[in-house]
Each structure stands twice: as structure tokens, then as C-alpha cells.
């Protein structure tokens, strides 16, 4: 029965592709496609789960759909099915099904009806890949899809300022989580010397034996997993993204940020539980993280005066508790809690507009001016301090800004002296020099050069930083992003056995999407003249198709799983030695920041309030 698992991925994939082909005017066909896709999946899931239970609910593993094989390396898609998957699959199919029906009427006549259902289906595909995944690589494919869907749904109202700004913010936080996942993958390559499946992780002897030798790598992997999980599930210090994600139509907020997406961090922890089960320090850390989140998110929830942010913070607090439950080993309990929380928050968000009439009526009959709350019994100064802190979300939002984006932008600004010409003048010779070094040193020597790879990767990272903080020329930003990949390729080439075919594999997607994007920017410039990066331009209003193509180019360049570069990226990491921490960090950071920089570039050019005001345009404060 194992091969049936593929159905749960192929049906959404097929539905997604069909939904892309339907003309956007045809609401009925679009919503029917979504209805059938999710409905059919739900139907099969229910049947399959029944059959599976009847057969004694074994843990299933579907292996070896190799997407890429070379001598040393293979990229395997692997599916896994156990009770965790079952719960997530059922909850996901059920809620997505209800929300597609709900949205069919709710979104009627909305501009972007098609875009909405495309994204919902794509999200559902990513969700199913993630929860069915049997190894990190497969999980990462789904994870990436979810990230981009999040961006698209938060920025659904792309002609307004705040949704676009918040979408970029949330996407950035997701990318930080992705660093964790990438580094965890990198470290586990070295720990296991293979693409370890989650199934194998449950083999206690195997894990124990490996970890005994490399305990620090074990802890490192666990921490990186925790980083990814905390970012995705809006735990500390990332919590402030969740309420800010509530910018799309209410049903999408309900399903994404009320239920499915936000619980995937929990999923990641449960999926890897057997791996960190015996690392007591990690378990304590998770309990503490969950506890702190719960303790801080609850007062924040209590002071919220808008209904969606209240639900968001209340949900974060519950997820904190779920983290504790997972860390303490109460897996079934955590699953139960997840399902209940997901249903509750989805429903609460969907009926949130009703809160006005409901509460006003309640007040009309039973009005009490100010409820006495538990906090009133605190000393005044403490009460007010906590109140004010909660109101300011414990400065979490500005904290992220302060420690992360400010320094990055500052470094980038230091590079302001670079212009397109200087850039080419400086770095083409440098790159050639690198190539000469490579030629002399010999590709793939047994003992790679100590500093050179790291240094080259750092130059790559600098390119990204500059691209990230570029305010004027999108072309410059774009070129830097392309060049970064070449630096990384160069850096890795110093390592052993990085063959030319592999480099070609890695750079193929980059070159194609790089060229498309380059052409795109030139063309947009010829249409619109001024396209600096100082503000949002909102050109998708006039060029929606063009915007789509450019987005695809951005995704390609970002190593999104639509070009071979995605696999190439994993390949690159498999070639980074475990002692090359600088190289690993620089490469991972480049990857993450490049993604953010690309999304920023796309948003600045195509999203936000349209610069031309011959039609209705939104206020910046909306």
C-alpha cells in the first residue's frame, strides 16, 4: 500500500497545474477544480487511513525516487507515513477542504480569485510534501513551497503597502528558519554520510552510536532543527510575525496562520524527536523555549484589542505548550492538542467579523465598565510595566529589526561606492584570479585550501549584502545576486571531487533565470524609466503577466525547487566539509539573504501601491 502515498502529492500537484490553466474569469471552474482536488484527496486519505488502521497501522516508508545521482551523491525523494503524518494529513485535508468551499463564495468577484485558489492549492501541495516527507531533502522541498505561498497569500492585496511590507517581513523570518534547516541538513550529511531517512532516525542503536562519536554535531543539528521549528511556529524570539501575517482574506489567514502553517514547527520537532530524544540539554531547551513563549505570548494576547492579533497570540501561547508536550515525550497528547488548536483557531478566525454584533449585544444587556482581571492584584508599577510591555509586544518586532536587519543593511551601505561598472571592473579580474588559483591548485585536491573557499564564499556573501541594501539600481542588485552563485561555485570547486557536470547542474538554473530576470529588468526600465528600489512601484497593476514571469525568474535564482539549481544547492552543501564552518555559514547565509533580497526586489518593482495614480490607489497606512 506504500505507493498510494504518492497520490496525496500527485492529486494536489495535478489540481494546481489545472488551476493555473483556467482563465481567471471562470470562477466556477477554478473553485470546482480546488473543490475536486482537495475533496478527492480527503476522500482517498480517509479511505487509506481506514485501511491502514485496519492493517495494524504500520509505519510506512516509500523510498528511492532519485532525482539526481552521481558517484558520491544522490538526491532522493522519500515518503514516510506514521501516526504523526496521519493526524497532520487528516487535519490538513479536512480544513483545506472546508476552506476551499468557504472561499468559493467568500471571494466571489474579488480581484485575484484565481490567484487565491492557485496559491491555496500550491500551499496544499507543499503542506502534503512536508508532512509526508521521509527525509530532510523532501521536507525541504515542501518547506520552500510553503514559504513562498505564505508570501503570496500575505501579499494577496498586492496594491496596498502594509500587506506587501508584512509579507516580506514574514518571508524573511521564514528564511531564517530555513538557515536552520539547511545547516541541519549539511551537518547530518556529515554525520550519516547519506541522506538519512526519518525512519532510520528511530533506530536507537544507530543514532546512539553516531552521536556518541560526534556529540557536538548532534547538538548542532538539534539546535538548527529547533531554530527552524521556532521560526515556523512563531516561538520566541520570532513571535511577532504571526499577527502581522493576517493581511490576506480571512479564510487564508485562518487556514495558514490559524492552523496548518503555524503548526509545522511542531511537526518538525515530532518528526525528529527520536533524534534528539536522548539529548537532555536540547529537551530542556525546548521546554524552556515553549514555556517562555507561553508566558510571554499570553499577556500579549490578553492586551490585544484587535480580534485577529488576539487569536494569533493566544495560538502562539498554545503552541508553546505543545512544544513542551513534545519535548516531554507526550507525543499523542501533542498531536491531540495540535488538532484541537488548529480547528479552534480556524473557526475563531472565520467567525471573527461576527465578534462586533455578538459582543455589542452582550454589552447592551450585561455591560460591566471594566472587568477586574488577575493583573489588577499586582502592584501598580508592575502591572503597568507588564501592560506596557505587552502592548509593545515585548519589543519583539523592533528586536528582530535591531539585531538582524539593521546590521545587514549597514554593512551593505558601506558598499555604496560600488556601481555597476566598478563592480565589473573589480570582480571580474578577481574572479579570473580565483579561477587561475583553482587551475594551479588543481580541482578537487585531497586537501582543499584552508582559507580560499571560505574567502570566496565571503565575497559572495558581500555581493548579497550589497544587493540587499541597494537602493537605486535593480539591475545592479540582480547582477550581484547572479555573481554570488558564481563565487560559491568557485569556492566549492576547491573542495574535492566537485565535478564540472555538477557545477553545470548547479549553475544551469541560475543562468537561465538570471538571463530572464536581466531581460525583465531592462524591459521594465524601457517601459517605466524610473525603477529605483527606494519605494514600491506596484507595476503588477499594468503588467500582471510580466510580474509573474519575473517572479519565476526570482524563484529560479533563489534556488527554489523549479530548476535543477535546487538540487545543485544540496549538492554544494554535501561538498562542504564539516570543519569548513565559515564556508558553510557563508554559503547558507548567502542562500537565505539572496532569497530575501530577491523577494524584496520583486516586491519593490511589482508590488505595493502603484506609482501611477490615474486609478484608485490605497493609502500607505492601509
Amino acid at each position, binding site marked *: 500500500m506504500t505507493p498510494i502515498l504518492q497520490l496525496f502529492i500527485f492529486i494536489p500537484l495535478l489540481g494546481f497545474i489545472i488551476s493555473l490553466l483556467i482563465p481567471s474569469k471562470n470562477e466556477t471552474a477554478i473553485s470546482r477544480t480546488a473543490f475536486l482536488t482537495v475533496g478527492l484527496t480527503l476522500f482517498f486519505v480517509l479511505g487509506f487511513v481506514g485501511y491502514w488502521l485496519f492493517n495494524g497501522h504500520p509505519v510506512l516508508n516509500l523510498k528511492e525516487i532519485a532525482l539526481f545521482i552521481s558517484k558520491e551523491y544522490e538526491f532522493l525523494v522519500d515518503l514516510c507515513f506514521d501516526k504523526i503524518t496521519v493526524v497532520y494529513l487528516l487535519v490538513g485535508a479536512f480544513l483545506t477542504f472546508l476552506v476551499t468551499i468557504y472561499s468559493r463564495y467568500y471571494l466571489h468577484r474579488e480581484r485575484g480569485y484565481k490567484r487565491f485558489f492557485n496559491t491555496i492549492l500550491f500551499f496544499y501541495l507543499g503542506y502534503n510534501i512536508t508532512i509526508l516527507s521521509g527525509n530532510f531533502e523532501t521536507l525541504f522541498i515542501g518547506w520552500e513551497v510553503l514559504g513562498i505561498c505564505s508570501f503570496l497569500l500575505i501579499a494577496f492585496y498586492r496594491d496596498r503597502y502594509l500587506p506587501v511590507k508584512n509579507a516580506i517581513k514574514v518571508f524573511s523570518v521564514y528564511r531564517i528558519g530555513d538557515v536552520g534547516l539547511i545547516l541541519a541538513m549539511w551537518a547530518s550529511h556529515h554525520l550519516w554520510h547519506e541522506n538519512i531517512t526519518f525512519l532510520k532516525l528511530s533506530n536507537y542503536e544507530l543514532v546512539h552510536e553516531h552521536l556518541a562519536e560526534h556529540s557536538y554535531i548532534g547538538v548542532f543539528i538539534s539546535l538548527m532543527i529547533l531554530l527552524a521549528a521556532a521560526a515556523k511556529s512563531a516561538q520566541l524570539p520570532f513571535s511577532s510575525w504571526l499577527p502581522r501575517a493576517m493581511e490576506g482574506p480571512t479564510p487564508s489567514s485562518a487556514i495558514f496562520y490559524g492552523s496548518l502553517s503555524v503548526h509545522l514547527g511542531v511537526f518538525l520537532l515530532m518528526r525528529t524527536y527520536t533524534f534528539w530524544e536522548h539529548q537532555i540539554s536540547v529537551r530542556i531547551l525546548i521546554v524552556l523555549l515553549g514555556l517562555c513563549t507561553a508566558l510571554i505570548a499570553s499577556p500579549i494576547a490578553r492586551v490585544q484589542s484587535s*480580534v485577529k492579533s488576539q487569536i494569533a497570540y493566544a495560538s502562539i501561547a498554545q503552541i508553546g505548550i505543545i512544544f513542551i508536550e513534545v519535548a516531554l515525550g507526550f507525543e499523542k497528547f501533542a498531536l491531540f492538542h495540535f488538532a484541537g488548536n488548529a480547528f479552534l483557531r480556524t473557526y475563531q478566525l472565520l467567525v471573527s467579523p461576527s465578534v462586533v454584533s455578538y459582543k455589542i449585544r452582550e454589552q447592551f444587556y450585561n455591560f460591566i465598565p471594566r472587568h477586574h482581571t488577575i493583573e489588577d492584584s499586582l502592584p501598580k508599577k508592575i502591572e503597568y510595566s507588564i501592560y506596557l510591555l505587552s502592548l509593545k509586544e515585548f519589543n519583539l518586532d523592533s528586536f528582530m529589526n535591531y539585531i538582524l536587519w539593521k546590521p545587514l543593511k549597514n554593512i551593505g551601505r558601506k558598499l555604496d561606492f560600488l556601481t555597476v561598472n566598478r563592480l565589473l571592473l573589480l570582480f571580474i579580474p578577481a574572479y579570473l584570479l580565483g579561477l587561475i588559483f583553482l587551475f594551479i591548485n588543481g580541482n578537487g585536491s585531497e586537501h582543499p585550501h584552508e582559507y580560499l573557499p571560505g574567502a570566496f564564499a565571503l565575497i559572495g556573501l558581500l555581493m548579497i549584502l550589497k544587493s540587499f541594501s541597494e537602493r537605486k539600481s535593480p539591475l545592479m542588485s540582480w547582477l550581484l545576486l547572479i555573481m554570488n552563485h558564481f563565487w560559491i561555485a568557485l569556492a566549492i570547486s576547491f573542495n574535492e571531487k566537485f565535478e564540472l557536470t555538477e557545477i553545470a547542474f548547479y549553475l544551469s538554473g541560475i543562468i537561465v533565470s538570471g538571463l530572464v530576470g536581466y531581460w525583465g529588468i531592462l524591459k521594465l526600465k524601457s517601459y517605466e524609466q524610473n525603477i529605483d528600489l527606494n519605494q514600491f512601484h506596484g507595476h503588477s497593476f499594468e503588467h500582471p503577466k510580466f510580474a509573474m514571469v519575473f517572479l519565476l525568474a526570482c524563484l529560479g535564482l533563489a534556488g527554489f525547487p523549479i530548476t535543477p539549481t535546487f538540487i545543485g544547492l544540496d549538492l554544494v552543501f554535501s561538498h562542504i566539509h564539516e570543519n569548513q564552518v565559515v564556508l558553510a555559514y557563508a554559503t547558507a547565509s548567502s542562500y537565505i539573504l539572496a532569497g530575501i533580497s530577491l523577494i524584496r526586489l520583486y516586491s519593490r518593482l511589482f508590488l505595493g501601491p502603484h506609482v501611477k495614480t490615474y486609478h484608485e490607489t490605497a493609502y500607505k497606512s492601509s
Partner: protein
Amino acid sequence: MKKSHSNESHGFDEHELLHELKHFLPAQAPLKDFVHHNTLHAFQDLKFYDAIRRASKIFGYKVSLSLEEYRSLYSNEQINHDILERVIAARKGSTNVEEWKAKALYGKYDESISPRIGRLRSNWKKKYYIDLDLLVHPLLFRILCSYLDQGISIWSFPDSKKGFLASMREIEQNTFSSFFKNERAKKLLLEGTCTIEDLLTIIVEDKSLFNQYIFDQQFAHQGWSGMVSAVEDLPQTLLDRKKITLKELIIFELLLEIDALDTKFGENWTSLKHRLDSKPNELFGDVPKTELSELLNIWQDAFEWTYYDQVLAGVKIDASKHEEIKEKSFQAMFCIDDRECSIRRYLEKFDEGCKTYGTAGFFGVEFFYKPVHANSSTKQCPAPVTPKYLIKEEIENSKAKTNNDIHFGKHSQSLFTGWFIAQTLGFWSAFRLLLNIFRPSENAAAVSSFKHMDTTSKLTIENKNLEDVEEGLQVGFTVEEMALRVGNLLNSIGLVKDFASIVYVVGHGASSVNNTHYAGYDCGACSGRPGSVNARVISFMANHAGVREILRTQGIDIPASTQFVGALHDTTRDEIAFYDTEIFTDENKQKHFKNEALFVKSLDFNAKERSRRFESIDTNESPEAIHERIRIRAVSLFEPRPELNHATNALCLVGRREMSEKLFLDRRSFMNSFDYEVDPEGKFLVNILNAVAPVCGGINLEYYFSRVDNHKLGAGSKLPHNVMGLFGVANGIDGDLRPGLPSQMIEVHDPIRLMVIVEHFTDVVLSAIKKSDQTYEWFLNEWIHLVVVNPVTKELSYFKDGAFSRYEPLQKTVKSVRDIESLIESHQENFPVYLIK
């Protein structure tokens, strides 16, 4: 425009600035008291086209359709070619018609709007590279929302009840944290002596720029500023009252700005004055006409008159073969509301003996209504009126009304109870959601107009003791007071003789679910409440023997066999409930039994007619089947359009039913009954027009402006709306409040101004509208069109620039239609005017 709108003088007058600012800010009350009003009320002292041109240039609003939209209306023949030529000829002279027509149809113009507002403050970004709004708004909005919150937060704002700034000061004094990042702003707040002028001196320095700076600042979040201004003026609009003034908001915002600037530059930055290249344009300086603005006006006129011309052609056709029916089966009064237009037509179609009337839906009785067990009372009359009476609901042995839906409760948001609820109730939510999607039904979240008053309750209507006063209001009306109101009502609608044995007084309300703007769907004449109470109250009065006695002396003789009965029509569900039917005599009971069936049948057909605008309902089905779908629609969580409310409204007819009886007006008309013979001097007409102008005009213009600029003057799509503190909606969590109407309410609306058609003689109408300056302004400044139909000759006169001139419709004949049912099945769009055969 008043002289005061200038900041040329170098002195700074805080009081004047605040006054002016409040005048221009959106005036929308909190959601529960949502009442339609003219969005650009601040410009009403100017002629409509001058006003919108100014508003557009100053504040950046889009104020009409775009050239492209007009042109496509023209090519779809929704703008008539002959009318367009006539409009051009009237404005530009008949020799220039071809030239201007070519411009209108093919001219290329830059339609982009670059408003004056915001220019001064944009220098922060340009010269200082700082985005002040981004730094200040999120915290400011959050504090305001928490301060004003009406019950969303569990731990509510520690409000000292001394006012906004005093509360801020108290918290700032008693905390280890702070609102600010630097000492200066903190000190300024705690000292508590700083004025707007002081702070502006720090930030801007140049006094002549102060006014403009504050306008820029407050219009960067006009939603919040408007709400603060509304709460300041009308504190009782919040159940949990809050003391706040616009001045306090401005001071606090200026402090936050100083703090943000200090954070970036330290305490020694140069004020805005020193970095300005040049002074920005005078905000309220002249806005000259342009060729584009004139073209847009031409198009708008042509668009409006294409419709008006059909209507006027229809009105002019004399359907005078009207034979008087001797035996009247019943009479029914409805609200003036455009949504009652079609139900009246169906009643009259299925029972030729009945006669319907329209009047403002509070039926001339103004009072506060206090339901049983309620803590406070609610106003049941037009918003500007402040009643002196209280009507109480009484039910024997009733239980207190309580809601118990845990999903809205506070427990699910707390840590521990939330933990328990998620594990248990979470699964119940899943089930509820499933049920709600596949079998929508009545639930706690729904608003139903029938819940407003209990059918079995008693109302304290008659006051027998003047000492009986509650909350400063007289409980009930004395007999004389009742007689006065009944007399006024009957005279104003012209029902003073030939009473049928039953007179129904039908109020209206709406039901919806998941709808933050629910109050806007109920009766506007009852301050956004269902009109059921008023219907019962006026019926009681009209049945009162003492009242009838007095009325008889005034020449209104209501026969003893005539009985008045109140009812409520739910315009969303198309259902009706009758009140106090136990008073019927046996004979009337029989008749009522028959009439009730007639109402049910008419409501089915009414539902069918409404359904043609709904995509999800097949209009070809039988009326009964469609009606069932309409009912389900009203309780479906996922339905953002439970009904279309006043969308497509365009007309207001004031006259006898005969004037419009034979016209198919496609639910686009407000209808107020009035008989010039009963009121030859126009005494009652004055009151009718005093109500029609602000109520119908307000509705019409709010729809107009929300339609032409849904982003800036409307609320945008309602789908992402987030409820803020129970008083407003915003997008997401840190956006500005969004006043105006959501796009789902206005998308089918054609933005044309209201045309009021009055049946009387021009001199009487002229003196009637001149009685009140406010009313006269509406007509004189062309925010509403006015046409008078001579009741004898049917001659039409159009009011312009203070005088009437004869209007001859271009259209000479009106198409007729025999079968309305197949007509409404034909398509979704607006219909032209038809004569009903």
C-alpha cells in the same frame, strides 16, 4: 468655502486649526451606530463639481469614474449619445459640440492625481531619510485602539478616566518601561504643559507651516483621527465611554515623532523649516478647472441624465385611466427605503384592492427604546434628532438574554483555560464549521432583525403620569403627543380618508452573519436599528380611542372598524412578522389571514427579483425555491453579500402612488407618499424634504464616493478586515481604520447623484426647500437633483441655481413590459425604466 481655510496668516490659532481639522476628517461613528452620510460633507458649501474637484486636488480622492470607464459605458449605450450632445451643448454652447465630443471620446489626458496633502511631511523621507509614519503609526494605533477598546481585550487599558493624555502620563509615571525611547519626549509628556504649538516649534519651527503640518499628519491616518474626533463629539456612542480629544491625539503623536527623530539623530536635529527647498503650495488655495475636470463633469452629467431622462419620460406619461376602487382590502405603510420598492409593487399586483404608502421608517415617532433587561437604551429615529421619550419593553417572567458562545469568550484566549478548550472545544469547532458550511443555520453569531424586540412583549407607549421619567426621558407619550404624531404622519402621506379595515405599518430590518457593517443594513431612519418598535408604537397610537377622538376634530375620521397593526419586514431574508395581531376583530382576523398569505407570496416574488443580482442563485427557479436559498444566504458565514442594501439607488419619488405605480424602477427608488391635495401649502412637504435630503442624499452620496474611490473613500474589500476594538475595521493588525463602505456593498452601484422628484407646484416646493438652510444647500449646490412634476399638467421643472426651468425629456416613449418575471430572469445588470402593462 469658509475664509478660515487658509494658513496665510502667520499667527497660529490652535482652536481654529482643530475646528477646521474636525470639519474635514471622516465623520463615521463606531460600527454599532453606523449611519450613512455624505462622505464629503465638509465640502457641501460648494457646488458639487467645484467641491469634488477641490477635494480631489487637496486630499487626493478619486471623485468620479475614469474617462475609460465613462467611455466604456458610452459604448455599451449606458450613456446615451443624444444626452451627451445635449449636455455638451448646454455647457459649451451648441457650436462646440463636435469639438468637445471628440475630446470626450478620444482625447488623451493625464488622469493621475497628485494631492497637496502630505507634501510638507514628505520632506522627512526626502531630506532626512526617515519614514516617520512607519516608526510612529504602529505604536500610536495600538495605543489608541487599546484605549478606546470596547471589549475585545481581556486585560483592558488601565484607564484613569481622566482623559487620554492623563492616562498616558499616569502609566508613564508608574512603569519600568516607557512609551518612548529617549528622555526628551518622556519629560515633555510628564511635565504635561506642552501645547501643540510648543511641540510644533521643536519639529517645524516655522509658524506659517503649522496648520499644514498637522493636516498632513492627521490625514496620514484619517481613519483613526476621524474616530477620535467622532468619540470626542459624541462620547455616548461608545457603551464604555472614553474621554479623548483630537488635541490629545495630536500632542501624543507629536511626542512620538520627536522621540523617533531623537532616536535617529540624537537631540540635536534641525527642524523641518531649515531643510525645505521651498514652501509647499497652500493646502486650501484655489483649484482651477482643467479641461479634464470639465470633461469628467460632462460625462458624469451625461451618465446621470441618461437615466433621469428615462425616468422623467416615464413620470410624464399620464397613466390617468385610474379608476377608483371602492372596497379597499387593506392599506400598508412601508419605509421610504429603496429596498421596499419591489415588495410594494408585488402586493399591489397580486391584490388590486390594496394600497401601499411610503414614509420615513421611524413613522414619525421619535424615542429611545429600552429592551427588557437591557442596560442602556437605543435611539429609534433619524440620527440628528434627540428624542425626549423612552419606550420600554416588558415581558412577564422573562429570563435575561444571554449569549453563550465560547468561541467569542475570553477563556479560549487565556493560557490554561485555552489549553483545556483547545483540547475539547477545538473538535466541536471543527464540527460547527462543517455544519456551517454544508447546512448554514441560525447561530449565536448571526444578527437577526426579529431579535430586536420580542413578539410577545408589551411596550410602555402611553404616558398617563408626567412624573414617570427615567434617565431624564419621559416614559411613553401622552394622548395629545400621540395624536400630534399620528396626525402628522397621516397628513404627510396623504392618508386622511377612505381607510381600509386594516392598515399595516411595516418597519424593516436586516439580518446577516459575519458582517461588521450590520448596522448599515437596518433602517437608516431608525439610526441603524430595525423599525419594528416604531411600527408597533405608531399602530398603538393610531388605534387609541383618545387619539382618534382628537384626530376627528382635525378632520381625520378613522372608522372604528379600522385597525392598525405593526409589522417588520426583514429585507435580507424577505420574511415578515406581524405584531399585536390579537387585537383584530373577528372580521379583520379573517381578512388578515388572507392578507398574510398574500404577503408570503409577494415576499417569494420579491426574493426572486432580488436574486437576479446574486451569482450563486439561479433566478430561473421557482420563487419559493429561490426564497429558501435567500434565507440560507442570510445565515451563511461565507456570504459577504447577505443582501445588496441600497446599491443602485438613484431616485427619490415624493408624491402619490399613481405617479410611479405603472413604472418598473428596478428597486432604485426611495418612495415617499405625499398628496399635494392634502397639503396644498406644503406644510408637511417641508418635513418630508428635510428628512429626504440628509437621509436619502446621505445614503446616495456615501454609495457614490465609496464606489468611485473604494480605496480612499470606501473601506476596500471586507475580506481581510480585522475588527478593531469593536468600533471599527482595519486591514491587518496595524493599519488605519477604514471608514466608508466595503467594496462588496458598492460594486454593483452606478455612481449617480440622487434625483428627487416631487409632485406639487413649483412655487410651493421652492418655498418648502427654502425653509431650512441646510436642506436648501443640498439642492442649491447640486448634491441632489430636484425635479417638480406639476400634478395637473404633468409638466416637469428642473431646479438649478435657485430657480425652476422647464424640462422636456428627450425620450418620448417608454418601452413597456408585460411579464416582469421573465424580464428579471434575463440578466443581472440594471434595467432601463419600463412601463408595466
